[in-house]
């Protein structure tokens, strides 16, 4: 699969120039991952961010009671994960595991730092994506807590929380 051509199909990168896509393509590493392999683990600091090229990746997190797991969804081709924790230097809030054999393009933290210093336009683009997602997540919680205040019911807030920050 031609990586540059693939990146052109990913909506997240639609604002990058052809030159920026080529720089990003050179920095990314492509790997084939077997089904069942854990790419990012909840609680750990992110070492890379990933773009799913082929296959499916499931996301889940430990239930707060300690019993069982909360299923948060499935990532498919063109979707990213691990970017927020890389940009914000935070721990992962969920585990990402290959359901099927997957092909991923990844950018390790060291390469991300080099990109940040050498091609600030690309790293700024990632920062903007993360800032937008964080703003949406907090706005969702904002509305959820207001609905809970108005109704006196915790359900709107919990619903907002479950839809928020699915993958960082």
């Amino acid at each position, binding site marked *: 699969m031609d990586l540059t051509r693939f990146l052109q199909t990913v909506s997240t990168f639609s604002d990058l120039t052809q030159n920026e896509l080529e720089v990003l393509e050179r920095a990314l590493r492509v790997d084939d991952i077997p089904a069942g392999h854990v790419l990012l683990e909840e609680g750990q600091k992110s070492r890379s961010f990933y773009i799913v090229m082929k296959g499916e990746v499931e996301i889940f997190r430990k239930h*707060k*009671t300690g019993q069982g797991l909360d299923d948060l969804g499935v990532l498919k081709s063109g979707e990213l994960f691990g970017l*927020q924790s890389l*940009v*914000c*230097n*935070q721990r992962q*809030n969920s585990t990402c595991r290959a359901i099927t054999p997957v092909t991923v393009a990844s950018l390790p933290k060291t390469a991300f730092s080099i990109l*940040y210093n050498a091609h*600030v*336009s690309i*790293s*700024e683009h990632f*920062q*903007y994506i*993360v*800032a*937008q997602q*964080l*703003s*949406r*997540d*907090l*706005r969702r*919680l*904002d*509305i959820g*807590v*207001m609905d*809970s*205040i*108005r109704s*006196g019911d*915790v359900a709107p*807030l*919990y619903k907002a*929380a479950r839809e*928020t*920050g699915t993958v*960082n």
Partner: protein
Amino acid sequence: MTRDDFRQQFPSFAAIRDVDLDTLLGALETSEAQKGSDVISAGRKNSNLYLIRDGRLQVSLDSGGQCTVLGEFGPGQWLGEMGMIEPETAGVARVSAVEDCVLLKLSHADFMALRRSDVSLTSVLLQVFCESLAERLRCTMQLVYEDESETDTRGDATMGWFLEVARQVMGIAARTGT
């Protein structure tokens, strides 16, 4: 406002280079808010970042005819970054001036123009906002999920807990150290 004045009053943005800071100072619009006036109205879209140079702004929620004050922001603090970054949705809180204020305003349109002309500047701004917003989100989620298992016992304390969550979402708890 000089570079030194800005850096002294807003140390979070200390990483901005001199040349980029000059650009930012040129883009910021000084506005005044009279005591009692609304800076951000509840339920209306805000697309401006406000850096508080002087005065105090109050954040409150209006519900069922009752106004609940969540907290205040003062000189050296900022609010509205979410609206500047993502102006599509309206906030739920009202922000009003509890005394005459001098604010430095950056609109979404001007921010996007800076993104085209000065990415090294917007990269620093975005890094500050990303880290701040991520911490607010992390603390809010922790607060929500820690109490989920205690729903049945919260009883009358629920409204107080809702307001605590609201403060965390809006970054009031973090910024005022409460």
